């Protein structure tokens, strides 16, 4: 039985360092290659030794696919390709290819320059790695090799995020990456066609949440920011440089413009400007509104949002600062947080998910005293607000995607085990499909039932469908023909052609059957009675309709190609033997007639 094997090296019952190995019809594909935010040791990267113990990466993997540019999906890529060593193709969308190196460089800088780690990938490695990348367009079918093909679908989430369909022959897997089913201020919603994959690998970050309307969230957010600014407080919004940041910027920018507010909005880090540049460029990847209006004004050209300088943090008066990174685990956002945490007028708004172990996670869980580096204790007096702006699909969205794609199996990754369990149950209940949730390193095997394509000659197809044409959709249909398996190909041809091709002579197969009838009359009279009987049946029975019944001069009767002869029984003159003979092709009619005759002739009809 053909099977698909899935082994998560990361993101199995976990969020972070997404990395999933898929073996499908002899092809090995690696989906995403991310790092983990919660760790600073070897655990931050997926365990590639799982593959390398059996040889080189390049030999094992047919291709690598990166779904989007977030570091937990692409952070380990230079390490993987340059330090472990992989020379095969890496596929990602155009925006991802453009933005990914910026983030990797930023990540490298923080790790190497700030924390002083050695044995980390270098700028050159990032560049070399990016040279191996092949960019794909939306809905473009890319032939990786002769059998393996991949296709990208729009996923929302961040600019350039894509879902990938991996297809070998008739077996297919869809990997969603991270996706969002509700459009936001700058991106559209994920969409997939009814591709009916054998397996859908979906993220499940919000497995147990059904969010209420996005608009309420936006209103709440604006209200909170506005109130804090009005009473002179400072608002810190930790974000990842790309993605949510742009959405919230658009939101605040339009709000500031509408309400005519004067408090400054800052955006930390220089990489944003570079990234914003790409947002301006990849307009086709954004939502309807931006695509429609960019001719008049590109929404990413902000008027009220200025670059942040470290010195600004001590300025008096209200301000709003977007700072990276989003989980408050390092960098500028953490620095600003420490400065502002002591004042209860200030507010920190966490717009997204926080991995366990980060400061963000701690303060959201209600911790008010934090132990910082060097045994300092930081008391948090500022207000802490959580607002689910992260662009992952909620449980409803996940269900919606499953309904759209109609997969035969579902596999959950990128979420917490307990929540997955809950969602798994729901999916099985609602869609009656198998649902899996392997942990890291655990292999799930899915048996597929692939359909085997067979070529059929047009003539035969038309002939066969013409017989008893019924307008049923996708109903299995019985066909007569000869299956020729030759040179790894399957063909269905008519028997005559098959005989001709194979140089074989045709053998006729005839069935004969004797039916005894009590009839004292002469043979030809019996035959006449049978003829009349059948003739009468032709009119009344639907099965016999349209068949011609003939009485031949030699006393035999034919119904189409079926021959019926009446002879006297050798011993008993009162019994007549009816000989019914038919070819294999007319089996149906023949056996019907036999059973009809066995019932006997009607009395006194002649």
């Amino acid at each position, binding site marked *: 039985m053909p099977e698909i094997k899935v082994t998560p090296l990361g993101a199995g019952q976990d969020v972070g360092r997404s990395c999933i190995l898929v073996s499908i019809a002899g092809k090995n594909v690696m989906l995403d290659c991310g790092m983990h935010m919660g760790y600073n040791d070897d655990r931050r990267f997926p365990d590639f030794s799982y593959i390398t113990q059996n040889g080189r990466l390049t030999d094992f993997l047919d291709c690598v696919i990166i779904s989007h540019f977030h570091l937990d999906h692409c952070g380990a890529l230079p390490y993987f390709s340059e330090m472990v060593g992989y020379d095969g193709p890496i596929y990602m969308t155009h925006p991802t290819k453009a933005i990914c190196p910026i983030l990797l460089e930023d990540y490298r800088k923080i790790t190497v320059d700030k924390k002083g780690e050695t044995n980390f990938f270098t700028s050159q490695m990032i560049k070399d790695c990016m040279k191996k990348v092949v960019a794909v367009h939306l809905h473009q079918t890319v032939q990786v090799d002769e059998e393996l093909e991949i296709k990208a679908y729009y996923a929302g989430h961040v600019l350039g995020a894509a879902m990938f369909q991996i297809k070998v022959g008739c077996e297919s897997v869809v990997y969603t990456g991270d996706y969002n089913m509700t459009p936001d201020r700058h991106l559209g919603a994920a969409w997939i066609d009814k591709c009916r994959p054998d397996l859908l690998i979906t993220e499940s970050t*919000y497995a*147990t949440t059904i*969010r209420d309307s996005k608009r*309420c969230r936006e209103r709440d957010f604006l209200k909170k920011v506005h109130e804090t600014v009005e009473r002179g407080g400072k608002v810190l919004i930790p974000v990842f440089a790309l993605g949510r940041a742009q959405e919230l910027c658009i939101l605040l920018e339009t709000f500031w413009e509408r*309400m005519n507010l004067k408090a400054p909005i800052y955006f930390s880090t220089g990489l944003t400007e570079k990234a914003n540049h790409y947002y301006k460029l990849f307009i086709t990847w954004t939502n309807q509104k931006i695509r429609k209006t960019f001719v008049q004004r590109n929404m990413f050209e902000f008027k009220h949002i200025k670059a942040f300088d470290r010195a600004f943090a001590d300025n008096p008066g209200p301000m709003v600062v977007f700072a990276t990174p989003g989980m408050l685990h390092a960098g500028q956002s953490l620095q600003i947080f420490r400065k502002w945490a002591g004042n209860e007028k200030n507010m920190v708004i966490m717009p997204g998910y926080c991995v366990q172990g980060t400061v963000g996670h701690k303060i959201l*869980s209600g911790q008010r005293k934090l132990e910082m580096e060097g045994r300092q204790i930081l008391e948090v007096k500022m207000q802490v607000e959580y607002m689910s702006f992260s662009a992952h699909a909620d449980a409803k969205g996940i*269900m919606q995607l499953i309904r759209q794609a109609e997969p035969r199996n579902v596999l959950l990754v990128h979420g917490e085990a307990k929540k997955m369990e809950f969602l798994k149950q729901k999916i099985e*209940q*609602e869609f009656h499909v198998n649902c899996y949730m392997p942990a890291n390193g655990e292999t799930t095997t899915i048996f597929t039932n692939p359909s085997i394509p067979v070529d059929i000659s047009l003539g035969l197809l038309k002939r066969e469908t013409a017989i008893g044409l019924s307008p049923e959709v*996708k109903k299995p249909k019985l066909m007569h023909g000869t299956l020729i398996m030759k040179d790894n190909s399957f063909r269905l041809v008519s028997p005559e052609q098959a005989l001709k091709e194979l140089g074989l002579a045709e053998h006729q197969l005839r069935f004969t059957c004797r039916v005894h009838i009590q009839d004292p009359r002469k043979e030809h009279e019996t035959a006449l009675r049978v003829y009349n009987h059948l003739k009468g049946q032709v009119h009344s029975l639907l099965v016999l309709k349209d068949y011609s019944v003939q009485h031949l001069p030699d006393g035999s009767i034919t119904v189409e190609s079926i021959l019926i002869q009446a002879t006297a029984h050798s011993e008993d003159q009162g019994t007549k033997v009816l000989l019914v003979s038919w070819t294999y092709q007319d089996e149906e009619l023949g056996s019907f007639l036999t059973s009809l005759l066995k019932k006997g002739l009607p009395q006194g009809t002649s």
Partner: protein
Amino acid sequence: QQQHEDLSAKKLRLTKPSKSAALHVDLCKATSPADALQYLLQFARKPVEVESVEGVVRILLEHYYKENDASVRLKIASLLGLLSKTAGFSPDCIMDDAINTLQNEKSHQVLAQLLDTLLVIGTKLPENPSVRIRLVEVACKHLTDSSHGVRNKCLQLIGCLGPVEKGVAKEVESQAAKDVQKIIGDHFVDQDPRVRTAAIKAMLQLHERGLKLQQAIYSQACKLLADDYEQVRSAAVQLIWVLSQLYPESIVPIPSSNEEIRLVDDAFGKICHMVSDGSWVVRVQAAKLLGSMQQVSSHFLEQTLDKKLMSDLRRKRTAHERAKELYSSGEFSSGRKWGDDAPKEEIDTGAVNLIESGACGAFVHGLEDEMYEVRIAAVEALCMLAQSSPSFAEKCLDFLVDMFNDEIEEVRLQSIHTMRKISNNITLREDQLDTVLAVLEDSSRDIREALHELLCCTNVSTKEGIHLALVELLKNLTKYPTDRESIWKCLKFLGSRHPTLVLPLVPELLSTHPFFDTPEPDMDDPAYIAVLVLIFNAAKSCPTMPALFSDHTFRHYAYLRDSLSHLVPPLRLPGRKLVSSPVSPSITPHEDPSQQFLHQSLERVYNLQHLDPQGIQELLEFTIRDLQRLGELQSELAGMADFTATYLQCQLLLIKALQEKLWNVAAPLYLKQNALASAAAKQILEETYKMEFMYSGVESRQVVIIHHMRLQAKALQLIVTARTTRGAEPLFGMCEKFLQEVDSFQR
């Protein structure tokens, strides 16, 4: 004449055969199919007279039988259809031929075209049921064709021509035409999506023509909702909607359980489900149709606003369990708070969902859809449902208000209009009002005006709300002064709708003080006018309010009632004094602006001498008008104003008369002017007598002035008479009389 008519008739007759003959010749000449096609194309461009249609059709058919090339036959078939459409032509004569051609045709495309022609013929003969039945039979025969195009056309034909009345159906002998619904229904599962679509459309067509569809179709149609093709789903949604309107109260079972619900509720759930379809065309369709499903139970309706399945739409399987406990929904968290998304207790696995869980929150989905077309459709639907259900209106309010912040202007506009339509059913909370009012700052004038209209008919719950609205509107006024009219109108309705809420605000709005007089606001300030409009309209149904007005408010009322009468209603003001005070200007309090006005206008008149005659006349005219109006407005000054006005009127007449220098020209030449002058003189005389005797308190100085005026008039009269009368006798008498009067005046 006779001859001429004959000639033209003859000409016509001559051309008739020539047209078909020419075509015939052309087609015979054609050597290749391409040529023939060219001729046909050329022919198709010209119109054909009604009389010659039949001949042309015969020719075409003749060629049709001879023609081997399918494309030419196709063109001929389409021409036949075109020709049958000719007004005044009755196509029943060519029907048999057209049906005959069908028999031997092999090409699927031509077959489809021929069926199309038959469809045209059939629709041209609406009062001939036997023809229609025959055509339907023909179509039924071709339904088994292997080409989707032919099946498509057949279904279309059946849909358009199939028998609708029961009586007709009974007469038909043939099996085929008897149950058109069954035939069409069989093709719901055709292998080609285009045929499936055509089948559904045909069914809808039958419905439109008045056939009552069978309820059995419902389950078939439900299956089509899961079709792979969007056009099928889109049509299926329509069909389900039709059925839900036909059989709203029927009971349908819920699969995998023994529960049953009303058909309209079930259909509603299914259409809700389609609001999150993959194709936006279907989403628009579904969202639109939701609006017109009015018979839906309220708990199903309310489910559309909540993405989580409500507990009352789930039933336990057994009544025993049901009785055991009421359970709450809340398996899923809302994502609002951090950490509340830990999985909760599994509620129960044996429960049956009355509504598919995918269908809940249809409007939440629709309103935040990616495509604004869907959002607009959802807003419209919301509006229609809210209009018929006040409780739903109350609940959907938050969602509508949120739509005011949509990124696309059309959606904002639509939602504002929607809100206005349902505003009778709702009362805005303060926070909602806040969001609504924030839109006043929108830079689009359309949006602002729509919002003003909305505020016209909004119910506000608190006086703070009214105050807020007023403040925001005034802000809007300063930001966009061009909105003035619209804002005033808005405040007019706001005031008349909420008199009791405005009442406590009045002192603050008018900035009056119980002890101190406050400075009088500027009457021309649009903002002040706006406030007054609000208050006066509220005062209309709140008789206690005028007591709070200060004096100048009353005056401003009178002014506004006059200048903006469409905005200020007539009020019965109890505080208004009807008895006029003594007219003498010296007694009147100095502050009174109307007194001032009177003085000013009189002062202006003092300076008359320095102006040119034209200017004098105009000034006088204006002053008279002003004075008359003032007299009407301020009764205490009425007498004085009237008096002055009359005086000035006399002055004006005199000036006019003198200006023409009437006394200089020879009288006979200017009869008319003379008449005018004498009339003027007469009127002045009359008025002066009135002035002298009809007003009380006229001082002697003023009497002298009056006398002076009268004298002038008499002088004028004298001159005119002198000019016109022949013979000196009467003149002398007059002169003497005049001189006497001058005498007495001097004394």
